[in-house]
């Protein structure tokens, strides 16, 4: 079977997200209701969700969600995990039979801490160690894909309509303080489970509507830092860009967003001197991380929710707030179906990132 990257996939999609800034819990049925309303924006070839705060009993451990395409991949990947991590629990992710979803891989999750001895020998810090382990599995272990690797969070994705994927993973049994969701419309691909959104590394997860026309520039830039784009779709690269800018370079989330969506030079020329210098520096230092093309993107993390749009505003994205909650969706109706009377509704414009920080103390990793 041809995988993505071997065929071209222009895509139009639906995205949605909810966050409770104070860490209040939101049931999975809400985000399913929101993304389901935009059914016509997807074509059944990919749906997925990211949920934060779902594994409080394992909050100090990495939660690895893995697709296995055969038992050999399962065995080899498991051996690798047991060598590099102290695995506490391993189980099949509970799923329910749904008519429209079939031919799936074997789906497992593992909770564990890093193997300290190996980590110290590798001379990497913990996050880097985890990223390199995930990259290793995804690039070198054929048939095994780690598609979620954060703490107290998880991605759930499949080939199918998003509302069916939600039912398949029984997401109404999960409560999270932050949800993102995606419905996919690839028009020219066999579609595979790893290629569905969200894309995740550590605590970062990305859902994306559109195309990244600067993909190869961005991929060449990010692969210099040890990342490998193994999923063969453009969205993946944004996840690594954010991880790199925020974790390696220590940029605040909003500055990282400005790197990706920096304004055009003629707009920069018209800015006051302080902002002109700021954007000139960003574009000069991070030219390879500037993202072009029609896109709206939502980044979920344990720090909050970030929504960005391309500079020319070629994809729709609506935002709303009510009380402690903020909502995002490709269409306003998908917000109003779960929040009929928002206090404020607006369209996220190009080059004006919206960041909704989480206002609870989520313990940071070293």
């Amino acid at each position, binding site marked *: 079977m041809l995988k993505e990257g071997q065929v071209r996939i222009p895509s139009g999609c639906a995205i949605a997200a909810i966050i409770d800034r104070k860490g209040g819990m939101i049931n999975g049925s809400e985000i399913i209701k929101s993304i*389901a*309303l*935009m*059914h*016509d924006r997807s074509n059944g070839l990919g749906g997925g969700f990211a949920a934060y705060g779902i594994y409080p009993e394992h909050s100090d451990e990495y939660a690895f969600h893995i697709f296995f395409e055969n038992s050999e991949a399962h065995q080899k990947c498991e051996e690798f995990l047991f060598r590099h991590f102290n695995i506490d629990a391993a189980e099949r992710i509970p799923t329910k039979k749904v008519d429209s979803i079939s031919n799936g891989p074997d789906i497992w999750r593992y909770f564990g801490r890093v193997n300290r001895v190996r980590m110290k020998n590798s001379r990497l810090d913990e996050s880097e160690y985890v990223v390199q382990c995930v990259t290793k599995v995804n690039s070198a272990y054929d048939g095994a894909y780690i598609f979620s690797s954060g703490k107290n969070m998880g991605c759930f994705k499949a080939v199918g309509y998003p509302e069916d994927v939600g039912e398949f993973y029984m997401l109404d049994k999960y409560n999270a303080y932050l949800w993102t969701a995606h419905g996919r419309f690839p028009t020219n691909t066999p579609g595979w489970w790893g290629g569905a959104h969200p894309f995740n590394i550590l605590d970062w997860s990305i859902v994306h509507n559109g195309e990244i026309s600067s993909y190869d520039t961005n991929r060449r830039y990010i692969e210099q830092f040890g990342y490998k784009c193994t999923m063969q779709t453009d969205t993946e690269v944004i996840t690594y860009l954010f991880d790199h800018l925020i974790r390696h370079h220590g940029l605040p989330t909003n500055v990282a967003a400005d790197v990706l969506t920096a304004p055009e030079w003629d*707009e920069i020329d*018209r800015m006051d001197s302080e902002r002109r210098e700021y954007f000139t520096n960003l574009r000069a230092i991070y030219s390879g991380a500037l993202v072009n093309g029609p896109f709206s993107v939502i980044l979920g993390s344990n720090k909050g929710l970030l929504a960005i749009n391309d500079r*020319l*505003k070629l994809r*729709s994205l*609506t935002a709303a707030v009510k009380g402690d909650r903020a909502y995002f969706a490709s*269409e*306003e*109706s*998908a917000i*109003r*179906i779960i929040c009929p009377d928002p206090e404020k*509704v607006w*369209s996220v*414009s*190009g080059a004006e990132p919206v960041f909704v920080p989480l206002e609870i103390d989520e313990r940071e990793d070293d």
Partner: protein
Amino acid sequence: MSIVAGIRGYAEVNDEIKAEFLSKAKVTVTDVNGQRYLGNALDGGKTLEIYGTAGNDLAFCLNGGRVVIHGHGQDAVGNTMGGGEIIIHGHAGDALGYGMRDGQIYVRDNVCCRGGIHMKEFRSMKPVLVIGTNAGSFLGEYMAGGTIVLLGLNLKRGEKLFGTHCASGMHGGKIFVRGSFPRENLSPNIKAVSLNDDDRKELDSYIRKYCRCFDADYDEIMKKTFMKLIPETSRPYANLYTAD
């Protein structure tokens, strides 16, 4: 009796609406949640009243009918409409009046990006777009004809009348703007001029209609000065790739 849309698919709801119009001149649809193509190709003499959030491509190819939304519109309201009117008691999303050829759209509040993109006119066909508050970036992009009116009512501190790249590639038609506007967001090809008598007469009819639709205060609106934005040349990109 009204049609209740709920969360049903757009095809089913549109089929019901069309069936109702076979025997009625006015149809009401309530609890609308993003269903697309409502009121598409509606003929003259017919009125569709919508309660809720209308989906994309509302009143697509409108053919003389009247569509009233008690709620908000999403993207591409009035896409390629050829006549009739759309009244929105709320705001609208991106690409309002996309390729609009005739008829009128009145929006009480704001519109997002690319309002009036590629509006055009031909002989007696002159489309009109009236926006109560403000517009996002690329208003009137590639505009070839027709009229946009931007009233700037209830603008909050820091909000601008229109976003960046206003009238980019505009080569026909006119945009009336009320009060101060962000000159730096205008595309280079565009000039702002005073209104002549014909302009004032034309504009007056649109403002009176806006006031009737949304119960706005005509005198209050007329307190501020209007300017007209028009292209300097009908071929802004004539020399994009070549020298003069």
